[in-house]
């Protein structure tokens, strides 16, 4: 195809260059458009079928009662009313928000401290060993690693309680008590996720010019003071990205509570995505599940928008 096209395309080129605008499209332009259509088709068709249509579908479905078997019944706002009255759904939203705040805060704190520490003076090979170690959990399956963690957090024979015993702490009923199950879920999640913020911070710290640190040191700023007054403001754009992405991911938490506690004991670790999964695929209440999904989407957008608004006050771009 390409070879035969060349002679016809060539003469049109000089004419095409000056004649921009509404002039008749040249053969090359038509070729380009045709190619663009071909290149974009898989992505655009895929996105429309598997994202755009489903979003609209979710909104429509949320207005019906439907169990897939019988024909759908109009529900109006009933599914949404139910969301705000069903105690399990309400608790799942509360759990997810609590989880989000604690997990993201812990994840950012650990990642920041470790990134600052790794950024200090040390042999290059050692730095890359640490970097690889902190990044490693990210490549594992959250589901499989939660299977492992379920053993480690076992009250009677788990390694976690054994280690706590060494420093004189009585065995904690991690996964079997309403008071501590969420803590275990958060710890497991943060263990796997902090490497992500860590990588972002290491990158951000590398982008801070060395001279700024040296100037600050010469001015007498040291240690923690230097980090608080000099490093953090310079790192704030990275902090914003890490927070926004961390929050979006945390609001979608599923694998850890599903495998570790299956939402229990009681509803103490049931998250929004678990409710979507259970009401759709275990109870066949597709309308309610869609309503919860739509609300989760709205929540994610609202929280993200809020962060960008707040960021105007705290984020300094160089």
């Amino acid at each position, binding site marked *: 195809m390409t070879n035969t096209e060349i002679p016809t395309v060539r003469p049109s080129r000089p004419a095409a260059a000056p004649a921009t605008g509404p002039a008749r499209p040249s053969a*090359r332009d038509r070729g380009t458009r045709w190619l663009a259509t071909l290149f974009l088709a898989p992505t655009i068709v895929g996105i429309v079928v598997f994202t755009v249509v489903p*979003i609209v579908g979710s909104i429509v479905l949320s207005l019906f009662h439907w169990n897939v078997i019988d024909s759908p019944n109009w529900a109006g706002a009933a599914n949404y009313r139910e969301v705000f009255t069903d105690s399990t759904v309400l608790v799942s939203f509360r759990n997810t928000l609590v989880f989000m705040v604690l997990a993201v805060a812990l994840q950012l704190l650990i990642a920041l401290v470790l990134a600052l520490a790794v950024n200090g003076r040390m042999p290059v090979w050692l730095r890359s060993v640490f970097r690889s170690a902190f990044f490693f959990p990210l490549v594992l399956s959250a589901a499989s690693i939660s299977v492992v963690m379920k053993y480690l957090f076992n009250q009677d*024979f788990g390694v976690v309680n054994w280690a706590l015993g060494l420093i004189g702490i009585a065995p904690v009923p991690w996964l079997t008590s309403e008071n501590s199950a969420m803590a275990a879920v958060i710890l497991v999640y943060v263990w796997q996720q902090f490497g992500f913020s860590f990588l972002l911070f290491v990158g951000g710290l590398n982008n801070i010019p060395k001279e700024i640190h040296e100037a600050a040191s010469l001015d007498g700023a040291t240690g923690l003071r230097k980090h608080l007054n000099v490093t953090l403001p310079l790192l704030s754009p990275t902090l914003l990205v890490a927070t926004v992405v961390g929050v979006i991911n945390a609001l979608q938490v599923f694998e850890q509570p599903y495998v570790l506690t299956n939402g229990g004991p009681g509803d103490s670790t049931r998250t929004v995505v678990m409710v979507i999964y259970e009401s759709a695929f275990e109870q066949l209440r597709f309308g309610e599940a869609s309503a919860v*999904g739509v609300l989760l989407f709205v929540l994610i957008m609202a929280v993200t928008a809020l962060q960008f608004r707040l960021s105007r006050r705290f984020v300094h771009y160089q």
Partner: protein
Amino acid sequence: MSQATLNMSRARHSLAPWARIATLAVCALLTLGPVIWTVSTSLRTPAESFDLPPKIIPTNPTVESYRGVFDQIDVWLLALNSTLVTALIAVGQMITAGLAGYAFARLDFRFKKPLFGLVLATMMVPLQVTIVPVFLVLKSMSMTDTLLGLIIPAFPTAFGTFLMRQYFLGMPKDLGEAAMLDGASPWRTFRSVYAPLATPGLAIVGVLAFNYHWNEFFRPLILETSGQNYTLPLGLVSLQGNLGTGSISVVLAGVVLSMIPAVAVFLVGQRPLREGITSAGVNR
């Protein structure tokens, strides 16, 4: 001289370097601890799995648990399913993202901006919000409980497209213009000039896709109902459910086996993986 004063002030005021490095080493051990424990426990007999303090080096290493996991579940089938799904998605994403990214970066066509906006907007949409209608769409195509149902919806990748667009934008424009002056068609310009340069970018897309889909749990859990279509994470979680706490080391042997490809990619492709994860802001 100024270097010397800097060092002095650093030594006086900040944590001594050895203390900082020791703290980092402890944190690294805590991070890798669960993985080390998994490997070492999988090499013990089931009866010894409960031993505390945990022995890092098993006294009598045995592969009994590995035999056990092959007896309990069809590891080969799970691995084959996982490999098929992951490999096809990775290749599919490299193709769709490479083509679409090139179109957005280097071709002129109508509705370019709104279409690119559409692609970007879908990056914001969480999978869980669309899963119910996606399930129904796949059901209407009789693709639930098939591997294809996992594979095909994962082909379009908004982030991959975005990444490849950036990648192609970073290449000098003169290259393509020179080729066109020589009479190359738009397709030929792409095929012979730009595509060969895109390999590192495509590697990022491929490695990210591998890492995410090899470990994926939510979609397989919903879409695959019969055991013959399970992927590794799904098989392992149900294995734990079936075995209870009696055969820890057997389950852990399965976990170790399922980790091997992910660790291999981590060792070989750490750089594209790191670049992908940090530039993406996606780690799902």
